[in-house]
Structure formats: C-alpha cells, structure tokens
C-alpha cells in the first residue's frame, strides 16, 4: 500500500525516529546524473509534506483513529490524525482529549458557558465537562491523512 510514497507514508513501518525530530527534509543527492550538476550553488528543495502538515515539530504526534463516531467531521476508521499539542484548543476544534481513562477524538464545544466534547455522527453524542469530569485536551487535530486507494 502506498508504495509511491515510500517510507514517508503512514503504512510503511520503515519510518524511523528522526522523522519527528527533523525540522526539515533534506534534498536528494544530486550528483548522479550524467549531465553533471548545473551549478551546485543553486539548490532546490522538493516539496515536503512535513512542511505542510507539521507546524510545530516538537509538539506534533500522529495517531490512528479507530471507530466511526467522527465520520461527519471527516474522520474515518483507520485514518491517521496529525495532532499538535502546541495549539491552544478553541471552540470548533477537533481535539484529542482524555475521557474516562482513554484518548478520544471529539469536536470541542465551548459556547454559551458550556464546555463539551461532541461526536460527529448521525445522532451526535455530547459529553458535558464539569468539575467532576474536567476537560483534559491532549492535543488539537490539525490534519487527517486518509488512504484513498482501494
């Protein structure tokens, strides 16, 4: 699956530790063509998905979605979530939060004096946060990566 993407995509187990600590992706070695390098001072950088998907490299984690309660928000079972902990969660954000000893993905509602986590399905379920059950946001979902090849 996703062979075209080599080791940069979610299903390749070859991706290693440096992926997350690296702030920039290197360019490819350029000296292998028979034409020689047309000016080694000028280097271009191939488009790198990390630049687009990761704003805060140290604070960004990837997680796998399981379940169908967020399909209306565009999150399908088995999608990969890009989760940024540096962003402060606000009303309307898709968040990863701690709920009853597990991590869940929900829509954050902060309106009319109510703080709640809401699912996104045909019949949305809302869990209101209060003193007994305080809101504990783990991170904010910034992107959803989904496999489209069937």
């Amino acid at each position: 699956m996703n062979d075209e993407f080599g080791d940069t995509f979610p299903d390749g187990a070859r991706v290693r530790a440096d992926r997350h600590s690296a702030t920039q992706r290197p360019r490819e070695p350029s000296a292998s063509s028979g034409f020689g390098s047309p000016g080694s001072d000028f280097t271009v950088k191939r488009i790198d998905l990390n630049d687009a998907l990761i704003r805060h490299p140290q604070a960004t984690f990837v997680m796998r979605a399981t379940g169908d309660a967020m399909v209306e928000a565009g999150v399908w079972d088995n999608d990969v979530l890009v989760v940024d902990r540096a962003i402060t969660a606000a009303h309307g954000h898709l968040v990863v939060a701690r709920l009853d000893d597990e991590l869940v993905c929900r829509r954050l509602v902060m309106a009319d004096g109510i703080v709640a986590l809401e699912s996104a399905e045909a019949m949305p379920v809302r869990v209101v946060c209060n003193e007994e059950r305080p809101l504990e946001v783990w991170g904010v979902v910034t992107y959803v990566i989904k496999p489209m090849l069937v």
Partner: protein
Amino acid sequence: MFALVDVNNMYVSCERVFNPQLAGKPLVVLSSNDGACIARSNEAKDLGIQMAQPWFQVRHLVKSKDLVALSANFELYADMSSRMMAITARFTPVAIPYSIDEAFLDFEGIPGDLTEICRELRATVLKELGLPTSLGLANTKTLAKLANHIAKTCDRKPTVYGAEVSARLSQVCNFAELREAELEALMCRTDVGDVWGVGRKIGEKLRAGGVKTVLDLVRADAATLRREFSVVFEKTVLELRGQPCMGVEEAPSAKQQILVSRSFGKPVTHLEGIEEAVSEFASRAAEKLRLQDSMAGAIQVFITTSPFRANDRQHSPSMTVPVRPTADSRHLVGAAVRAAREMFRPGFNYTKAGCMLLDLQAKQAAAQQSELDLFAEPEPQSPAAGQAKDRSSLMDAMDSLNRRFGRGAVRIGSATTAVANDSGAASWSVKQDRRTPRYTTRWDEIPRVRC
C-alpha cells in the same frame, strides 16, 4: 547563570503521556530483560520501592497495591528526550544535554527575569510534550543541580522544607533570589549525599567525619577536604560556595547514562566522517562503561547541524537501538554505526554527534539475570563456550593498550560492523514482555484514538 532542567521520573512520565490509565497509579519501568526497577512514579516511591530494586522483590505489589510494571521503551524515551532538548534550546542558545532527561542551560547574556523564563520553559514542555519538569537556577552548575533537587523535593514533599518555602520554590528554584540566611537554612536541611558529585563512598566518608548536611560541607575546611578527597571533589565544594569551576560543557559523569559527544572542528557532510565520529564516541563510551563494570541495554545516537549557522538547513535526528546488555565495544559501535547510516542525509552540514549508553546495569547482575533466564536466546555466534570470556579479555586488552598508548590507539573500525551486523545487536531480541508501543517512532505502533 546556569539552570538545570530535568524531567520528573522521565520514563514513567513518558509512559503516562500516551496512556491516561497510568495516571495516579504506582508505576515502575523495568530494565532490559525485566530485571530491575529503573524508574518509579511518586506513588511507587511511596510504596517503598527503591531505585534498581530487583523486580522479583516487588512483584507481589502488583496484586496487593495495584502496582503496574512496564518494560523499558527506550525508543519512546529517547524521542521524547530529543523533543524536550529541542524545546529547551528555544530559551537559550547554550543548552547542553547532560543525560537522557536533563540539560544544563547557560543564561549568560540573556536579559529578563530568569525565574520567569524558566517557569515559561516548564509550562512549554508540559503543554507540548505532557512532561513535568523541575528547574534549578544558580551561578554554578553544582548549585543549579542542588537548586533543582530542592525544586523537586518542594514539589513532592512539602514537609521537608516547610509549606511556605515549598510553595515558593517548588518546580522552579532560583538560588539567586534567596537571601544568604535562607540559602543556608535550605542547605542545613539537605543531606550531603544529595550533592552532585557526592557518591556513596564519598558520602560515607564525609558522614564519618561529621559532615552530614550540605551546609556542613560548605563550611568544612578546604585544605582538609583537598587532603582527604580528589581535586575534582574540591571543585564541587568551591562550586557549592558559589565559585564557578565548571564550564557549561564540563561535568562529572551521570550515574545512569554515559554520554560521549563532541562538536566537530568543521562541518561534516559525508557519511564516512559521521561513521568515524560515532564509532569513536561509542568506543569511548564503551570504555567508560567497562571501567565502571557495567553493561548497557541500549545506545542512543544523535547527529546534528548547527542552529547558529543561520543559512544552513537543519537536521537533528536521534535514534535509539536497544541491544542485549553488553559492554562489548564491537556491538555498541556496530549499533551506533547502523543508527548513523539510517539517520544520515546528504546535503547537510553536521556539526556535532554523540552516543549515549542507556539502561546501565551492573555486569554481575546482568550476567546472573541472563543465566537465570531460561528462555533467553543463546548468545549468537558463540559456538565455542569460552567465547564470551575471550570477548571480554579482548576488551580488557584493548582498554589497557589505550591506557598505555593513548586514547584511540586501538579502535574498533567501523568496517567491523559487518561482523557486528551478523551477530548483531539488532537481531538479539531482548526480553521485554511489558513494553508499550513505540508510539512516536514506528508507524505501526502509533497511539490509537477512539472515534
């Protein structure tokens, strides 16, 4: 001004970030082969579990006290560590990692309220990584380390220094803000064994001589101390008195890890150069390891570009390779070189590299453990029964040649990695029944979120 930042109960805290069920529970992390407790949550400490206590001695607490034990997940800890180090580097250009969970920061020339800056650093690490830290600030490294100890004690046990003091100094403790009388009161209540550089032996000797608290040591006669102890220890005492003797890169070695790292004279752009550097660093680390009769269960390797070369693109990967506990340079060098090859990318100006040995354990304990471990894989490539012995005498010979002819006289060539690969550390599977997923370094082990 120096600051020492470290993560409270690092390994345990890393586990809790990804598993909310572990919050508030007594939790220990076990060494390779699940032999001994190498990290404890505060709740586990409160149960009386000691550092390095063998697992079989505390195992009964699983039933009686809901103790949770996990196998060490060094890939996770090392990745969280490199994130933490990168965050600290935002607050000062001079942030030197000292071990997997601590770094010295030099605030020379940084304007502003340093206590506030450190509180902000703490809040940032907590928000971005979920890891709680403690910070100590002072004008010498030894005092910064002591301030860190006090910051942590105030946070965990407010009764030790009193509620009012603890409220003020917990989490971030800046000695520069204290009056001398208050500093002395703190030192008077702090055991001399809590001073950086006072090991078990020195501590016993000091106590026998009537030096029981940090204040006793500060007030002890310098000439006597110099006679009784080493020059290095004299530095420790001078630093405690507020006289800086150690630069930010200089430090007595940490107990739990061995770190060898160095900046290159000029940037290295080729894999061969990187391989050579990490080979040397891993060899030196292995030599230190053997000197203290220990074995390592993992090696972390990092290479980095310089954030001060503003026009350079940056690449600072780090990778941890678990190995079956070993003190053999060849295995450690082999693992280090493999990691370097994996991480190296052409087109970058690398300016520094380092190797850190992790999961250190006493050689005898490790040996006993593997003897007892019926299901452990036999040592690969050891058809001859005496091979393990041969190997350690080879290492002994190497060490004595290096002592005699100077460091690096005899080296493990990175060329020998082919051999190391075959018998290789990576192919040895360490027994880790309770290891959590490597959440941040393996795509097939990323955390699951219920939707």
